[in-house]
């Protein structure tokens, strides 16, 4: 009997204690969720040498003004970024905030994975880099950076060869060959040229296409792939490829590393890539020159947007972070870490920065007239369309198919699918 009473008492006491413990735990977790917030920010740039560290340092300043917020990196390599983010978001997961290329941004917005962030931009004078962040009257994205394309060169190598800064493709080939001949081991010109790097190659190639006046879509919204302008652009790329100045088979990271180590004379790259080349390598930033691309018309730019995930449990906090990022101090700090990339608001490159990095002002100027790599009206499908175009370019440079025939085939494939 005594035993039974003891057991009952023990069970009752345990039950009371358990209830009390559960109640107190619930209180604690509620209090924690109200006070502490963790925002996960996905960006491929976190992995960039030096630049990634600098950009993250800027972002982390937010924790000083919002001590309840902890920022966490989701660093995804550039080549896998679209795949990983798409898969994560498709599965209802992913980061709170994504810093993504324009193409991925459109796909995410189209799938309904991004929320309206218009509140973050209230009262802020946004510049035109934010124009494409507005889709059907709703703001889904705030510009993080816009990286225009320009031609960059290794000044000491050019000086040694007495080569001039080219203004046409023929001059580019001649100057690149002269530089290679004068300094053995130096590659004439670095450029993406392989289908296994499609996502980067098609964006780079847009500068060639736009430079020759290509519009991939006509006034009526019909896709126009085999225009005379496109034929001329592909022919110019083939001429460059055939001249032997490009290091065939090298990936872009390898080519950029070679540039950093003083082994490349010319390249057509965006400002982000150039900042990477100018940071922490053997080639001093002051020895890098910048010029307009050797084409008649303005080229392309890569646009990166910030978006807040529909799946985020902290959407309001994420939008507050975006609002902070648009403040003057944050934009100024971002300017220091972003080199000459255009930002969401007009923050000029400082004179000291331009003096230390003589290539920077060229990019700023070219960004004024550069065009998006996306095809208007086909933003989500751009990469699929450009796959057909780049397959045609690959066919032209690797076989004896003429540009007109290859692009006509691409046109027919595009017409069939879109």
């Amino acid at each position, binding site marked *: 009997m005594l035993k039974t009473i003891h057991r009952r008492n023990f069970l009752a006491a345990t039950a009371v204690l358990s209830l009390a413990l559960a109640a107190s735990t619930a209180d604690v977790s509620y209090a924690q969720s109200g006070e502490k917030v963790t925002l996960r920010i996905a960006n491929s740039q976190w992995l960039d040498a030096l630049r990634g560290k600098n950009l993250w340092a800027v972002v982390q300043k937010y924790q000083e003004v919002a001590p309840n917020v902890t920022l966490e990196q989701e660093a995804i390599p550039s080549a896998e970024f679209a795949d990983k983010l798409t898969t994560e978001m*498709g*599965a209802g997961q992913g980061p709170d905030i994504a810093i993504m290329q324009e193409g991925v941004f459109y796909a995410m917005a189209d799938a309904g*994975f991004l929320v309206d962030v218009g509140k973050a931009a209230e009262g802020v004078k946004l510049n035109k880099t934010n124009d494409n962040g507005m889709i059907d009257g709703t703001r889904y994205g705030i510009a993080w950076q816009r990286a225009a394309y320009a031609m960059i060169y290794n000044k000491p190598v050019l000086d040694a060869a007495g080569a001039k800064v080219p203004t046409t493709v023929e001059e580019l080939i001649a100057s690149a060959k002269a530089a290679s001949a004068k300094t053995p081991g130096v590659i004439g010109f670095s450029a993406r040229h*392989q*289908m296994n790097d*499609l996502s980067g190659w098609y964006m780079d190639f847009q500068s060639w296409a736009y430079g020759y006046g290509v519009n991939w879509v006509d006034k009526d919204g019909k896709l126009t792939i085999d225009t005379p302008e496109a034929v001329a652009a592909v022919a110019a790329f083939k001429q460059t490829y055939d001249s032997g100045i490009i290091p*065939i*088979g090298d990936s872009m990271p390898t080519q950029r590393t070679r540039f950093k180590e003083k082994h490349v004379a010319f390249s057509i790259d965006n400002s982000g890539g150039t900042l990477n080349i100018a940071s922490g390598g053997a080639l001093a930033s002051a020895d890098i020159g910048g010029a307009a691309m050797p084409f008649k018309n303005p080229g392309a730019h890569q646009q990166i947007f910030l978006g807040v995930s529909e799946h985020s449990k902290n959407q309001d906090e994420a939008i507050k972070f975006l609002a902070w990022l648009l403040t003057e101090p944050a934009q100024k700090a971002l300017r220091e870490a972003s080199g000459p990339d255009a930002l969401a608001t007009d923050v000029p490159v400082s004179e000291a920065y331009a003096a230390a990095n003589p290539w920077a002002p060229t990019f700023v100027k070219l960004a004024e007239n550069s065009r998006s790599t996306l095809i208007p009206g086909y933003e989500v499908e751009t990469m699929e369309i450009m*796959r057909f175009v780049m397959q045609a370019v690959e066919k032209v440079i*690797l076989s004896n198919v003429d540009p007109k025939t290859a692009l006509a085939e691409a046109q027919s494939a595009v017409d069939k699918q879109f």
Partner: protein
Amino acid sequence: MTGSKIRNGMTRLVPYAFILPPMIYLMVFMFWPLARQMYMSLTNTKIINPNRGRFIGLGNYERLFDDPAFYLSLKVTLLYAVLAVIFGVALGVISALAIDRPFKGRSIVRAILLFGWAVPNVAASLIWLWMYNDRSGIFNRITEFAGIGRFGWLTSIDLALASIVAVTVWQVAPFVMLVVLAALQSVPHEVREAARIDGADGLSTFRAVTLPHIRPAVQLASLLVCVWSIRRFDIIYLLTGGGPVGTTSTLVVKIRQTAFEGHELGMASAYGAVGLVLALAIAAVHYLAEQRRMKWMSR
């Protein structure tokens, strides 16, 4: 019901109890995903909205069979698999025969020959990527030294597939060698000796004595190498990404392109279904050949 009847009933259930866990595993991790994939191939599912796919019947297959790129990838897949089997198995068998007999330093040679099999595919691909590099790769250094110039091992339409096959053979031949080496242990020494005394030369001894003993192992290794080649992604994707001009674009590479670049999960599933049918057909051919051989041996 007596105790012995219950015991008998329980005994009959024991095999099922043993089979149950692997069956559950296969159901959950193989058959269910396979069934999902088959269904998905009949929908217009996109990767960015995987739960909002609409049933479109055979629409994906219609598009697939109407696409010249599909036939090219099918051709590349079969060619790649056949070449990998021929060269991988031949090299594996020759290596096994070479190291089957004792010689000085055999264990070191065996370890070196196994190296390709031991290295992870990604690491192997990156090593070969550098060896194939146009400017600084070892192969072009050699060909330049020999005065025959440089070659675009991975960038030339004519050489890319052969270069990929070479890496694959380097990877699979050691596996074939191991399997055949094990089978060679079953060849009775006396029979070989008798053939030698009867005056049979090396080739005749191999054909009449050794080959019948190792044939099942060679067949099995061929089947495995063939199926692995159809499924192989890492080596091809890392070395060429399916290029140049689709000359190394196998079905698996097309699946990846369609799913992640084209965002078309439904269409990618249709590609996957074709790959599955291909692998099953090859397995069926192997099974039939094996059945015929068993029938012939039992006569």
